[in-house]
């Protein structure tokens, strides 16, 4: 039973109810900071951390806080988690903190986080809430990084540039130039490119889903080996 719950939670967060591709929540940071992999990874990590912290904390206080004041209490918790994240980033990844700028404090207003706090964590046990936060954060983060990679490749012709901002000087050489002498395609890096690529990712996900659905339908309708055909003779009145 319990295993079932965790499997469903992972499936929901990563695919079926993916915050970025299905719920379309948190689009503002999704569109704004995914111009490169390192930015996307930074924000994904920050969001994941905040989501786990806030879901756990909200679940812990769910019997104490009354319904009337629950939203302010949730926002306070989320804001504290965001502040912690911000201070951590200032300490360990200062350049990235400067690039992400306003979008770090804005994690507080990310609908994914408040949505999970109110929709799941405030009604469920601590373990499950924490796991739900992790899965939702991962689902959001994967889309962020994927989008960042796509836009970086199309925009600059390279991948993993400036990874030293996040992983220290050892990562400075991680940059992979895919096309030499690539003419920068500014649209992919500018906000309209974010919209277009997000739309294409959503279309791809829907395509995969409908493919799975069709195959499942075909399997349902396929005759079972050895079954007999129903023979109808005479007229049905």
């Amino acid at each position, binding site marked *: 039973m319990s295993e079932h719950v965790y499997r469903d939670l992972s499936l929901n967060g990563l695919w079926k109810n993916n915050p970025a591709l299905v719920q379309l929540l948190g689009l503002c940071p999704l569109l704004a900071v995914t111009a490169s992999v390192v930015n996307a990874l930074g924000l994904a990590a920050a969001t994941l951390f905040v989501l786990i912290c806030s879901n756990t904390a909200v679940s812990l206080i769910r019997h104490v806080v009354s319904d009337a004041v629950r939203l302010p209490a949730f926002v306070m918790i989320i804001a504290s988690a965001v502040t912690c994240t911000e201070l951590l980033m200032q300490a360990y990844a200062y350049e990235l903190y400067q690039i992400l700028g306003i979008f770090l404090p804005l994690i507080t207003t990310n609908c994914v986080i408040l949505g999970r706090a109110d929709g799941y964590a405030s009604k469920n046990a601590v373990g499950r809430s924490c796991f739900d936060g992790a899965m939702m954060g991962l689902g959001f983060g994967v889309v962020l990084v994927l989008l960042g990679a796509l836009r970086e490749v199309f925009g600059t012709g390279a991948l993993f540039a400036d990874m030293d901002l996040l992983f220290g000087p050892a990562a400075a050489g991680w940059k992979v130039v895919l096309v030499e002498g690539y*003419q920068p*395609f*500014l*649209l*992919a890096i*500018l906000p*309209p490119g974010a919209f*277009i690529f997000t739309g294409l990712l959503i279309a791809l996900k829907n395509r995969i889903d409908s493919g799975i659905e069709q195959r499942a339908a075909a399997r349902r309708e396929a005759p079972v080996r050895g079954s007999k055909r129903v023979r109808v003779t005479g007229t049905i009145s």
Partner: protein
Amino acid sequence: MSLLRITSPHAHGPLSTTRVMQTVLLATLPGVAALVWFFGPGVLVNIAVTSFFAIAFEAAVLKLRGRPVLRTLDDHSAVVTATLLAIALPPYAPWWLLAVGAAASILLAKQLYGGLGYNPFNPAMVGYVVLLISFPVQMSTWAAPRGLAAEVPGLVDALQACFIPASFDGATMATPLDILRQNSDQSLAALYAGTPQLGAWGGVGWQWVSLGFLAGGLWMLYRGIFTWHAPVAMLAALAALAALFYDGGGPGSGGSPLFHLLSGATMFGAFFIVTDPVSSAVSTRGRLIYGALIGVLIYLIRTRGNYPDAVAFAVLIMNFAAPFIDYYTQPRSYGHARGDRP
């Protein structure tokens, strides 16, 4: 409401999409001829290469969507989109620029929305704007016109510029609209005296290109391809605004009405882009409003905005507004009172 009073036979052959598209292609000829005369055969290479990519992309998408490929390609709409885009692009553009433009026009603006007749935005202008904001350098290098350049490039040069861009070195020059934007502190008289590119009215070469597109547009109007409302409203609004701020040609006057009408993409836009039946407003009053607002936006962006020419941006912005305009200008059907709108 006007009733047609003609004798029988009343049956007439309606214009098919293919016929309309062929007429549009024919109507571009005078303008394209002027472009070839003044700027060399670069525009012809542009048209050929862009059409090739547009047809290839269209065929690929139709195949993917399970639509009849040849029957749909036969409506010529991909070629028209490609031709309009290629005319708008700078001549001697590299092939990859044309390919990206064709992809944005056909894949993004047309087929993703469902193909011809379903696109809310003008595909050629979407392609142009995608290129303009993505590749500002390539999009702002215009060839020098005949009479000012030492020599106009030939066909071999044009092919070389398209397929081996690194080896091509043609004479380029700022367009008249560029010149006017960058020298807003000079009076127009001084500007015209100091820069030969400005010519008499709209710039050397440019004025004849504009007149060529005007001639093609008038011919299409005569053939009944579109009604006069949108293009006339656009040209009138642009000229009126230019006249309003002209103040006799002092510094910052923004250019004379004639300059605005005969420079840049005004005439091309008025007759070939604004008249797009799919993405524009459809009611008669709606077309007047749609065209006039495009004219206003063109003037505002040209004189106050960041880009020298503004037809593409103005058209795309008004494409957004076209359904809204249609909603408020819906004609009253005969015999019905003008009821309250929901």
